[in-house]
């Protein structure tokens, strides 16, 4: 499984405009689950689009397992990095759910039984296995988002990048996304996800990277990033620590208390 690295990456969309990424250096080890958090416009989406070559650094370097990605085409990088877009409607184009999911793995050269198994597995993972023949636009928005996730899962890339996967999802949808991330982690795949849902971040990721104005301003495990000592930094980027972290810190249970420890402490407190 490959490592991902960004070294002093600067990205400017238009000459003279603000730096969407302002000297970002980040190393993601194989198998890590990394959440990117930060206010809108902090550079999260710009950052992840560098990972599969959709955007190229204005300066700096992006590497995959030590190899500079600059000479690699997006289609080549797609074998290693699967990026799920924030808006599924900017991704979905096929006439049926199965055809949509097939598109990516087919581009990567999968055929026959391998292709069928990849599609079935991905549809099952997101709970859409009974919708294979449905037109994607007959699905609701939240299920279209899960379809977009399935269409990347089927590519079986070692690195999964998810742009706001839980936005617009109900509790069941969030649980499905959690399940997908846990399964990918169990297989040793790397997961990088952008999210504004701090409960989801605290519960599903090993590492939280906080961005503000194109820079990384915080990086560490959830227990440290959501600890009381980091709340000022989080609030300066318009982020609120998860409710559990705030209650846990107040009760002396730390910033990532388990449900059990929280309930016991609350019962004790009467």
């Amino acid at each position, binding site marked *: 499984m490959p490592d991902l690295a960004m070294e002093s990456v600067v990205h400017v969309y238009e000459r003279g405009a603000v730096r969407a990424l302002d000297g970002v250096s980040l190393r993601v080890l194989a198998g890590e689950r990394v959440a990117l958090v930060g206010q809108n416009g902090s550079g999260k989406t710009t950052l992840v689009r560098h990972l599969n070559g*959709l955007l190229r650094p204005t300066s700096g370097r992006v590497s995959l397992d030590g190899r500079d990605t600059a000479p690699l085409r997006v289609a080549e990088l*797609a074998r290693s990095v699967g990026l799920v877009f924030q808006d599924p409607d900017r991704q979905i*184009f096929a006439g049926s759910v199965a055809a949509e999911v097939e*598109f*990516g793995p087919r581009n990567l050269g999968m055929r026959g039984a391998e292709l069928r198994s990849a599609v079935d597995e991905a549809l099952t993972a997101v709970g859409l296995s009974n919708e294979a023949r449905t037109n994607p636009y007959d699905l609701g928005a939240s299920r279209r988002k899960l379809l977009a996730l399935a269409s*990347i899962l089927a*590519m079986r890339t070692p690195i999964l990048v998810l742009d706001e996967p839980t936005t617009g999802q109900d509790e069941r949808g969030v649980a499905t996304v959690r399940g997908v991330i846990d399964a990918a982690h169990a297989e040793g795949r790397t997961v990088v996800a952008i999210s504004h849902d701090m409960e989801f971040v605290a519960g599903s990721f090993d590492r939280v990277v906080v961005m503000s104005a194109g820079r990384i301003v915080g990086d560490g495990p959830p227990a440290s990033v959501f600890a009381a000592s980091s709340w000022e930094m989080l609030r300066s980027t318009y982020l609120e620590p998860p409710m559990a972290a705030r209650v846990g810190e107040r009760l002396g249970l730390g910033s990532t208390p388990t449900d059990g420890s929280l309930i016991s402490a609350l019962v004790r407190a009467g």
Partner: protein
Amino acid sequence: MVSTALAITLGGIWGPALLTVGAVLLPAALAGIAGRLLRTALLLTLPIAISVLVINLFFYPAGREILFAIGPVRATSEGLAFALETLARIGAISGAITLFYLTTPAGDLVLDLERRGVSPRIAFVVLAAVQTVPALVERAVAITAAQRARGLDTEGSLWRRLRGVLPLAGPVLLGSITEVEERTMALEARGFTRPGRRTLLWHPPDSSRQAAARWLLVAAIPLALVARASGWLGWLG
């Protein structure tokens, strides 16, 4: 509209060419958008310009004087003259349309149409049509990026690019139509079709000099027609 009428009315190459310089390039240069205008107009007219030139140069029915021959097809000077005349007209028309597009915000145009009594429905159709092109381009870029992320190879040779992008044309178009449909429903939900006259909260600025200039331009159409019919414009070729 006036440019189109004049480009057709004025004869030869020099009439439309002078029109392009005076009514399109000069205002564009004053507005600081000459470069953008030339690029956009060229992009829009290049396919039709090439076909006009090739068809007339080689297949003009009244062509007699042969310039050169490629196998059985012969290029004639009459065909070349007709092609250049047509191209001058196309240049004047597309330049004027591009200048209008680059200098007039769609929202202002629609507000002004409504102020002049055009039905809000028609105004919406105009706005939707004007906004469709940039929306279509933005959508196409986003969808292509998403498919590239799924291994669709659109880099490299022209053939590879075409092979990658062509299957996306249908969904891009359908998506844009769906978007307009959704916008229509959103407008409907906000009482768009309610009968009665609306109060406009803002009027696009319009000075009396601008109004006078517009009337002068409109008056130029019958003048050009009379001048052409009476042969006063013979010097234009």
